[in-house]
């Protein structure tokens, strides 16, 4: 009698364990299936681009050797100013990063630590600036740029891009600076540093990892901007890659299509890898902001 009850109980427990195991397996299958789908959809155009970058054109002579070809990559570098576009983007991006940090880091510190009654209002105002659509500004900014003698020069982009990058950077940097323990700063001031000295020598170095994340994001934003680049720079040799490469499609011959799309893939991959390194940091600092009050 007793043995039978025990056996039933054991069987029931085994059943439940198997059910739990099956549920676990099902959950994993769903997670992996969803992960593969998400990755494929997000990478779809670039995967196809990568595959076709090394493919022969359909109307190539039938005598063309089978297997992959590097002809389109060669054309990209020889028949289009792709390298020049990339160098322009690197220069503009680098200068924008410097200007952005110089403006945003002190502002972020003021918002994060120097408790003023108007601190929150200033922070909200700066955040709202990042919502201003560039089409509202590009016509008047092109007059400003022309007046300053910067028309058709990438200096125009260095001047204007921080309007896009500073608001975002101020917010993220303020988050990173808040994460630096206040005690360290007070200790530095006890040790004889001024408030300014404590910021420069103690707080800023502690926030270096956060600054690296902001640098990468700022660069990505500067590299991706389109409206201002299209309006302010029209000579091929001065264009950044975001307008230069699409420009090749409208005036280039259709044979270049494959090479141009190869160029897009070459820009996309390193940028995503660089930003991927800092994803956890962005999420952490945004989460701190979301749960702050």
């Amino acid at each position, binding site marked *: 009698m007793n043995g039978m009850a025990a056996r039933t109980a054991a069987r029931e427990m085994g059943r439940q364990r198997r059910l739990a195991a099956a549920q676990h397996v099902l959950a994993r299958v769903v997670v992996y299936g969803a992960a593969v789908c998400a990755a494929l959809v997000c990478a*779809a155009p670039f995967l196809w681009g990568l595959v076709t970058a090394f493919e022969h054109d359909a109307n190539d002579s039938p005598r063309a050797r089978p297997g992959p070809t590097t002809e389109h990559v060669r054309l990209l570098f020889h028949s289009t100013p792709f390298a020049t576009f990339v160098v322009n983007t690197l220069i503009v991006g680098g200068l924008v990063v410097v200007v952005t940090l110089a403006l945003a880091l*002190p502002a972020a510190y003021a918002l994060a630590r120097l408790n003023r009654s108007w601190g929150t209002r200033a922070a909200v105002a700066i955040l709202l600036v990042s*919502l201003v659509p560039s089409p509202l500004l590009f016509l008047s900014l092109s007059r*400003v740029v022309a007046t300053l003698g910067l028309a058709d020069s990438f200096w125009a982009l260095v001047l204007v891009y921080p*309007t896009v990058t500073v608001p975002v950077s101020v917010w993220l940097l303020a988050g990173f600076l808040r994460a630096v323990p206040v005690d360290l700063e007070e200790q530095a001031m006890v040790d004889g540093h001024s408030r300014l000295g404590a910021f420069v020598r103690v707080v800023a170095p502690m926030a270096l990892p956060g600054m690296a994340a902001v640098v990468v994001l700022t660069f990505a934003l500067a590299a991706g901007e389109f*409206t201002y680049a299209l309006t302010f720079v029209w000579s091929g040799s001065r264009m950044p890659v975001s307008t230069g490469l699409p420009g090749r499609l409208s005036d280039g011959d259709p044979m270049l299509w494959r090479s141009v799309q190869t160029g897009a893939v070459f820009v*996309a991959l390193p940028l995503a890898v660089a930003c991927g390194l800092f994803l956890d940091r*962005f999420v952490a600092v945004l989460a701190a902001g979301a749960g702050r009050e």
Partner: protein
Amino acid sequence: MPGAGRRTGHKTRLADREGFLAWAFLLPSIVYLTALVVAPFGLTVAFAFSRSTSEAPSYRFAGLRNFRQVFGDHVFWRSLLDTLALTGIAVVLVVAFGTVLANLLLVDFRYRRTVRVLVLLPWTTPVALSAISWRWLLGSAGSPVDRLLRETSLLHGGETPLGRTSLAAASVVAVHVWRLTPLAAVIVMAGLTAVPRGVWDAARLDGAGFWRRVFGVTIPLTLPVTAVAAVFTAAMTFADMAVVRVLTGGGPGDSTQVLPALAYLRGVERGDIGNGAAIALFLFPLFLAGVIVMLRVVRRMEARP
């Protein structure tokens, strides 16, 4: 506060006065943003009431001439409707997909790092270059999409997906949803990690089922951050001209034209600055709507205990 006594002795030093430092640190950013965002916006408003062209940029008041012209332009109405529809549809889809993606990215699994980099691609790639890749995938003969559409007989003969109005419009929406979903996912992820694990567990112990916990706990607590994701999605959709310019060129005909691209065509390519500025001003109500939502979110977060 251990340093308080010591600091009062230094009060005269400028580098120690918080009020002064706060101003000195914020001022450069405020001056810069005022000069290159606030003032140019005022200038755009002024241009909308002017006769200025790129040949004769000096200011000549024109009253409502530009607005009368714009209202009589059927391409403008088409672009306005397209912009509104595109923004609305994109926001709904991006928030939905972004929430799913955020939950997925928070789960631990093998090759998570690789998946994360691939998922970031749409967000980090310059929009115009993504549009090139999409045009190559959608518009070239023999691509997987082209073959799929032919096999399901949605496409016949020499047509390409981007040459048919309905498919071209769907492509523009798809590319925007594709490129903004990862950003929304990152914002929602932040909101999810900020929800204390204990709240979720407590609800479970109280007997709330999975869906009850999703609708009773997670969604209310992440609503502010979801609203932020929606506002940024909207702002980046209605301000963008790269997707339409590179993917469809506004075509076929003017069927996929949007306001920013039209403002560029009229204001820069045709050189009619006044007309372009008048068109661009119709984005202002959309911006204002975003600002109102953001301010409500901020107030809610401040009111939170």
